[in-house]
């Protein structure tokens, strides 16, 4: 599968959708204003269609915009994003007939942070980063260096179970096969390291991480599963926590956010990417994902006709932990 071909097909399909009046808006990606970034493109103008791109940097989960756009929408999604849409459908936040899903079979996104660390330079100092099969080629000052993908893709992409969209109207390329267990260990390495620590050390770890949090709420606002009109942190009666970036309040915010999005989070990794102070938030969301899979054999965003995870039960649900 080839990004350029998908891009061509995407532009063709998106233009047709707009021209035939099937959608009022297209939500996709265009090249960003910085090297190796993309930015959401929300447009109703066919003139903008040629700006749509598909490449290994289409990081944002665009389903976060669905609630804010009125009318029928065409939206570009990767595997994880499509599950967010299914999750929103389960919660009745959007109507299926209002969206046309343009599915990108995804082969993983390149983690610029990892590239920077490997090369020892920041992204704007590099000439090119390109995906070539199972390798990523980084060009710096005319010199190429190659890295295997498990060193440069995002952790969540390495462990991705469903790279091809689960729900789509138009698929832009051949379905991608999941990597299976090949990169699972790398994907879950950070979580494993944490689980191997004694409880107190783990608490200390999180406390130190959340000491850095500035409470910008980017993790919450970038998240399609966080769709509350009024977040619990904004409640004043009762006031659950202070609007002050103390580690106690920061940590509590994140714990409760994770419980709230349990069963909705599809491990898209958006929160961790958005965090300006590098808090490993995916180590939280992925663990919750794992707990739900282990205890309830539930995978979020797979079936739009079932009830949301926390709004359903089985009489046979686990009782092991009950005193």
């Amino acid at each position, binding site marked *: 599968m080839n990004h350029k071909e998908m891009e061509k097909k995407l532009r063709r399909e998106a233009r047709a959708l707009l021209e035939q009046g099937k959608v009022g808006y297209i939500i996709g990606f265009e090249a960003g204003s910085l090297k190796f970034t993309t930015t959401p493109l929300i447009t109703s103008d066919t003139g903008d269609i040629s700006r749509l791109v598909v490449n290994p940097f289409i990081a944002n989960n665009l389903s976060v915009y669905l609630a804010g756009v009125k009318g029928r929408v065409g939206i570009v999604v990767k595997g994880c994003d499509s599950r967010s849409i299914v999750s929103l459908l389960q919660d009745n936040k959007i109507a299926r007939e209002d969206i046309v899903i343009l599915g990108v079979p995804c082969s993983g996104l390149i983690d610029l942070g990892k590239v920077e660390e490997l090369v020892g330079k920041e992204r704007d100092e590099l000439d090119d980063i390109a995906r070539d099969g199972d390798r990523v080629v980084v060009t710096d000052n005319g010199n190429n260096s190659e890295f295997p993908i498990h060193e440069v893709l995002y952790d969540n992409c390495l462990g991705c179970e469903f790279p091809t969209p689960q729900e789509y109207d138009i698929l832009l390329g051949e379905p991608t096969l999941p990597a299976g267990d090949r990169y699972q260990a790398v994907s879950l390495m950070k979580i494993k390291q*944490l*689980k191997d620590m004694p*409880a*107190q*050390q*783990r*608490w*200390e*770890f*999180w*406390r*130190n991480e959340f*000491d850095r949090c500035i409470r910008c709420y980017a993790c919450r606002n970038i998240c399609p599963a966080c769709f509350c009109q009024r977040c*619990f942190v904004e409640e004043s009666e009762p006031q*659950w*926590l202070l609007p002050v970036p103390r580690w*106690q309040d920061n*940590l*509590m915010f994140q*714990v*409760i956010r*994770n*419980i*709230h999005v*349990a069963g909705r989070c599809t491990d898209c990794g958006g929160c961790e990417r958005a965090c300006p102070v590098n808090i490993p938030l995916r180590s*939280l969301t992925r*663990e*919750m994902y794992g*707990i*739900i899979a282990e*205890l*309830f054999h539930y995978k979020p965003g797979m079936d739009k006709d079932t009830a949301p*995870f*926390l*709004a*359903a*039960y*089985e*009489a046979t*649900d*686990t*009782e092991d*932990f*009950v*005193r």
Partner: protein
Amino acid sequence: MPDYEPKFLALCCNWCSYAGADLAGVSRVQMPPGFRVIRVMCSSRVKPEWIIRALMSGLDGVLVLGCHPGDCHYQTGNYYARRRMAITKRFLEYMGVEPQRVQLSWVSASEGQKFAQVITEVTKDIKGIGPNRLFTDESQRNGKETAP
């Protein structure tokens, strides 16, 4: 810490567990006195916010009590509570909170004895891990310096 008496919340559902607690009291069953009962209409009324807020305020634990599965006054409330508590407990454990601090149990209106037994067990559990110092500032930090 021989004299340490854990303080924890017992969030009792109105229809079963609260009556069970009442029965335990009326029958003068002996149990440790460190718990405080808050009556809620149903165990599914308990939000994760409450549990974490309670731990943040320094309580040593939170015990949620509801009707036995199948006996919920609202038919299914305790099933939802069970799911929610399962993930809350496991997740907090992953964060580094001792699992003994967050517990769920079923106590019916006629189970005064069981209420006392659960309270005794939870008290013992928490005694085993000691007072809640999770959210206090003084305990050992990584020696990291931030800008003053």
